[in-house]
């Protein structure tokens, strides 16, 4: 384990099962002069839905493609289902299911033909019919891939990942580029797969997706895991359950006049930061803190132009750990 990493929960797998679904130790990968993965340790138990959350460029895709056997790594240990890519590649490919970012299936094949092709690669698996049903593509069975919507194409990619009845499923940014409705549809599908007891490892840069789907989340930044645990455990890292965001009138010129010390002196306020004129406070006792914030600002002769509060999310965890926003990058 690296020093900067915050470990919140011992993985239950060590007790329940001697071979976790995924075990990474000291994983490193460098592309030319860019360190994509910088000493990664992860353990995912069987039946778990595990999320890799981080901004673009954090190393999520490199990590998952190393796990999928698509990218060679420089140093460390990678074990899936107790097997190693060097010695058990053929068996591993039979036992894992993969959905890659931006795979384009041939436009002129139908849904059914595409799935029949992928089914033929596996020694055992589920019938093509069943994969179509699971992905809710029954009505599109004979439609060509080129006519499908973005969400339907993504469900087809999921179905292709499922035809081999995998023990371990990798989903790389499964909802990137989808509209909100298609995204919820896909989330429901992942929920079903979780309930069926499959082990799922997914990457995402949407914190609400990680919160909604994952039992445990590892937050990645610059090729390292900076925190991992369940969502409540991670949110507790912020030190307060609520976030207050506000801006003051004429903030461009009067920014400097806000005395941050007056704000952080208010009981229940844990931290203060400013990002592009928007002030963020992490607050533990919202009901008593908010009136005092108003009072403090009025005392400084400032007028609020924006004011809102929300419960702390994984986004706020990322911000408090890195000082940057997830979606900025």
């Amino acid at each position, binding site marked *: 384990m690296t020093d900067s990493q915050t470990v919140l929960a011992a993985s239950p797998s060590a007790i329940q099962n001697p071979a976790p679904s995924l075990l990474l130790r000291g994983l490193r990968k460098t592309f030319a002069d860019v360190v994509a993965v910088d000493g990664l340790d992860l353990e995912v138990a069987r039946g778990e839905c595990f999320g890799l959350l981080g901004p673009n460029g954090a190393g999520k895709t490199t990590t998952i493609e190393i796990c999928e056997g*698509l990218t060679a790594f420089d140093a460390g240990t990678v074990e899936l289902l107790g097997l190693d890519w060097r010695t058990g590649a053929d068996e591993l*490919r039979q036992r894992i299911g993969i959905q890659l970012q931006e795979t384009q299936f*041939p436009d*002129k094949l139908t849904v059914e033909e595409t799935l029949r*092709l992928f089914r*033929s690669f596996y*020694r055992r698996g589920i019938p093509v019919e069943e994969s179509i049903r699971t992905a809710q593509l029954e009505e599109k069975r004979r439609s060509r891939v080129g006519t499908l919507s973005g969400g339907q194409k993504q469900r087809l990619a999921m179905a292709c990942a499922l035809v081999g009845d995998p023990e371990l499923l990798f989903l790389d940014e499964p909802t990137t580029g989808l509209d909100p409705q298609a995204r919820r549809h896909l989330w429901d599908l992942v929920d079903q797969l979780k309930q069926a007891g499959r082990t799922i490892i997914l990457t995402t840069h949407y914190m609400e997706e990680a919160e909604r789907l994952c039992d445990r989340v590892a937050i990645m930044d610059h090729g390292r895991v900076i925190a991992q645990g369940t969502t409540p455990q991670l949110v507790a890292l912020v030190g307060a359950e609520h976030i207050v965001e506000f801006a003051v009138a004429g903030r461009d010129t009067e920014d400097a006049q806000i005395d941050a010390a007056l704000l952080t002196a208010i009981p229940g306020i844990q931290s203060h930061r400013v990002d592009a004129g928007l002030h963020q406070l992490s607050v533990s006792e919202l009901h008593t803190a908010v009136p005092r914030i108003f009072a403090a600002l009025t005392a400084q002769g400032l007028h609020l132009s924006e004011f809102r509060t929300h419960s702390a999310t994984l986004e706020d965890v990322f911000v408090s750990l890195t000082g940057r926003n997830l979606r900025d990058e």
Partner: protein
Amino acid sequence: MNRFERSSLYQLTAVRFLLLLREPEAIFWIFIFPILLAAGLGIAFRNRPADVLPVGATTIQLTQALDADKGLSAKTMDEAAGTHALATGNILLLAIQSPDAVTYKFDDTNPDARTARLLVDRDLQTAAGRHDAIQAGNQLVHETGSRYIDFVVPGLLGMNLMGSAMWGLGFAIVEARQKKLLKRMVASPMPRWQYLMSFLLSRLAMLVIEVAAFLGFARLTFGVPFRGSLWQLGFLCVLTSLSFSALGLLVASRARTMEAASGLMNLVMLPMWILSGVFFSASRFPAFIQPVVRALPLTAAIDALRGNMLQGMNLGQLAVPVGILLAWLVVPFAVSLRSFRWK
């Protein structure tokens, strides 16, 4: 589905075949275009009956003497008009009557004009009373196999085999790579050799239809001869197609984008379209580039196809072009397997 239909090699091959059939442009270029081209060339270069040559003469007597010849059509015109008609190509020769002689005005670098000179002179000399020293008769032959269409059909066949193999293999692979489909397939348990094999199998299936349609058309419409053994012709077509498939694979083995593949493909094929004797004999190129021309796979393919179809040569007699094609099959295939970019 039975066991066979569940096999990945069958599925990969069937998908490849389906995708090709669902691409209307591919169907046009592979099946329709060569037939249209053969039809066009066959019509343009058909063997016409001997031409009637237009000539001019300055007196009515001369014109009458010349018009009696079926090979000539003569008109009366004065010298100025006749010179203009010569210059504009309306007549090939002008016969000018002077008081005690006849002068022929014509371009001696034009073979038709030289023919006209011979005919006109014979007619005028005969009309003036000359007798032939010996009796001569004609026996006419129109041999199939020596026509331009007979020459060009094996050339077009070779060119078509090259195009369909290279585009069919190269483009599909690079497209799959660019769309990350290749990466997705490699992440599955699919055996990689089956992926490449499926291209060759679907190519061979397509080949049967493609060659049968084109040669059938050439046979029925133009009566193009097949003097060699048909199964050896089939073997030559398969060998040609596989050699160009290997070349297509080589072009596709590293290219990441369709644009790059397209450029490479043209770079490889363009010299062969020009040098390999599709439309005219490759032996017309100067001697110093002949070794290069002979080593090109399309030259070898077309030489072998012409040897089989037009001269009835067997594989033993065609050992040199067959050997060249085999070399073009083995070397690019081995190189591309070693350098193939699967992601």
